[in-house]
C-alpha cells in the first residue's frame, strides 16, 4: 500500500470506520488528505494534563486549527526542515473506538479510542499510548472532525521531539 491508495479512498460514512481511515492516513504520511478530514472550524488538541478543559488558560502540547495544522504539514516538507532529515514516520495501533454519544439525525458522534503510538526518525524511537476523543460532525454529507483531543499517558512527563501527530 502507498499513500495514494489511502488518499484516493473517500472517508467512510461510518464513524468507527472513519477513525480507522484517519489513523491510516496519518501512518501513510498522507497529511494533506488527513487535514481535509477537519471541519473548517476544527481543532486538534493535545493537552498537557488529563484534567485540562478546553477553556482553561493552560499550556498544551499542541492546539491547532486548520491554518496551523497546514503550516505544520507544509513545514514538514520544506526543503530546509532540518529536523526532517531523515524524515519521521509514525504508526498507530487503535483499540476499537467506542461510540460515547450520537445524534444520528444530525450526523454527530463522539468517540473514545485507546491507542498505542510509535514515532521513529533515523535511529530514534518514541513509543507512547493514550486516549483520543473525537467529536465528528456531518458537513455536506461527509463526516468531518470538529474536535480531536489526544491525551498522552506521558503528556506531563519528559518528552523527546514529537514531530508528527499522535
Amino acid at each position: 500500500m502507498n499513500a495514494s491508495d489511502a488518499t484516493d479512498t473517500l472517508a467512510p460514512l461510518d464513524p468507527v470506520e472513519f477513525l480507522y481511515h484517519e489513523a491510516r492516513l496519518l501512518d501513510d504520511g498522507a497529511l494533506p488528505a488527513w487535514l481535509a478530514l477537519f471541519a473548517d472550524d476544527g481543532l486538534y488538541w493535545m493537552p498537557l494534563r488529563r484534567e485540562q478543559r478546553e477553556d482553561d488558560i493552560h499550556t498544551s502540547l499542541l492546539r491547532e486549527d486548520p491554518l496551523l495544522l497546514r503550516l505544520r504539514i507544509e513545514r514538514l516538507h520544506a526543503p530546509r526542515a532540518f529536523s526532517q532529515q531523515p524524515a519521521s514516520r509514525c504508526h498507530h495501533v487503535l483499540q476499537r473506538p467506542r461510540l460515547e454519544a450520537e445524534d444520528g439525525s444530525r450526523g454527530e458522534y463522539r468517540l473514545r479510542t485507546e491507542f498505542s503510538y510509535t514515532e521513529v526518525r533515523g535511529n530514534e524511537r518514541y513509543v507512547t499510548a493514550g486516549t483520543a476523543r473525537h467529536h465528528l460532525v456531518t458537513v455536506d454529507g461527509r463526516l468531518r472532525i470538529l474536535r480531536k483531543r489526544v491525551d498522552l499517558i506521558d503528556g506531563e512527563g519528559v518528552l523527546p521531539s514529537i514531530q508528527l501527530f499522535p
Partner: protein
Amino acid sequence: MQTTTPLDAGRIRGLVRDGQVHRDAYISPAVFDWEMRHLFRNAWVFLGHDSQIPAAGDYYTADIGNTPLIMVRHADGSVRVLHNRCAHKGARLVSAECGNSGKFFRCPYHAWTFKLDGDLLSVPLKQGYADPGFKDCPAGKGLAAVRHVANYHGFIFVRLSEHGPGFEEYFGDALSSIDNLVGRSPEGKVEVAGGVLRYLHDCNWKMFIENLNDAMHPMVAHESSAGTAKTLWADQPVDAPKPMAIELLLPFTEGYAFSDAMGTRVFPNGHSYSGVNASIHGGYSDIPGYEAALVAAHGEEKAHAILADVRHNTVYYPNLTIKCAVQVIRIARPIAVDRTLIESWTFRLKGAPEALLDRSCTYSRLINAPTSVVGHDDLHCYRAIQEGLRADPNPWVNLQRNQEAGEFDTLRQQGSTVVNGTSEMSMRNQFDAWQRYMLADAVQAPERALEGAAP
C-alpha cells in the same frame, strides 16, 4: 578520538582560549562531572519560585547540579532550602516534585522525621541511639540546610558552596530583567501558572544556553517554520487580523540587519540579554485593559518604560533563561554530558488581564514544547554539534565573531557592555564565567579540587 588527558585545573584552564572552546567542554563525561561538582556549586543557581509554595509545609523539589534539594515554606513564612537526603541512610526524603509535608518530613524507609528547618524531630526507638556521640554526628543534626539562599521577587536562587560572591555581586544589573518581568504586573507580583513543558534535549546543556543570545541562527534554522508561516500568511489581506500564533511566529523570519540592530547587553559572570534596542516581541497587539491597569499602578512614565523594554532572552548563568516580555522562563537541567532537560514555565502577572497568561501559554506551546516546529530545528542543530564534534582534525568550537581586544577589561570596568546583536561576546562571556566557577575551588580550597569531591 576524545582527549584522554587526566582532568585537573590546568586542563580545565586549557579548554578555553582566544574565543575558542575545546570540544571536551561539550563531550567529555569527566568535564561534565567537574561542572556538577564545581560550576553548579559555586554559581548562584535558580531553584524555584516562592509562588509554588504559598502555604506552610508546601514544598518543591529539584536538583542543582547533582545535588537533590527541597525548597519548603517554613511556619514562619520564610523559604528554606534543605538537602533532599535523609540524615540516616541517605534516602531521597521526598520523591514528589511538589506537595505539602504538614509540619514535618518523614522518611519512607525508617520513619525518621525532620522539622521544616531540617532539624531532627524524632527517630523510632530512640533508645537505640543512647550513645552520646550520636547528637554530634551528621545524622544527629538532621537535614543539612543550604545557607546561601536569596529570594529576589520570589525567584529563589541558591549557592551551595560556602565560598564565593554574594547574590547581588554575582548578578549585578542583570537582575533588571527580573525587575522588568515583575514590573509588568500591576501589583508588582508574579506567580507560576499554566503548567510546565518538559522537553528532553539529547545535547550538552551549554549548547542550549549559548543559543539563547545567538542572533545569527533564527533566519537559518527557523526558515522552514517561520518561513512557512510567512508564506501562508502572505495570501491574507494586509489588514487581516493576525491569529496570535501567526503573530508570535512571523518575527522569527527577521533578517540579519534586524538581528544585529537588536543589540546584546553583557554582564560579568556570564549573564546577558538580547534585545537592547528592539526585539521580536516589540510588535504584539495590545491586550484590552492591560496598559491602563499598568499606568494606574506605576504612573504613565514608568509603565511605558516597562512596556517599551522588550528584551528577548536573558541568560542568568549558568542555566536560567527568561523572556520577560512574554513571561516565560526556561531552565536547562543537565542530566548527562549529552542529555539536558529543558523545562518551560509561564507566569501570571498578578492584577493583569488573564489574556496575558493565555499569550504566555500560547508562546510556550508554539516555541518551547516538544511539539514545537521551532524547537525541532534548534534541537536538530544542537544534536548535530554533539555528533559532529567527534571529528578529530579540529577540536575547537569557534566563538570569535566580533571579538575585540580587551573586551573583558571594558566589561569589568563598566559593569556591562552593549555589543551588536550578532556578536558572539555573550558566549565568550559565558565561558569566562565557566572557567572562573569551574576553578573557584582550585583557588579557594585546593584540596577539594584535587580530590575532585565536594565536602
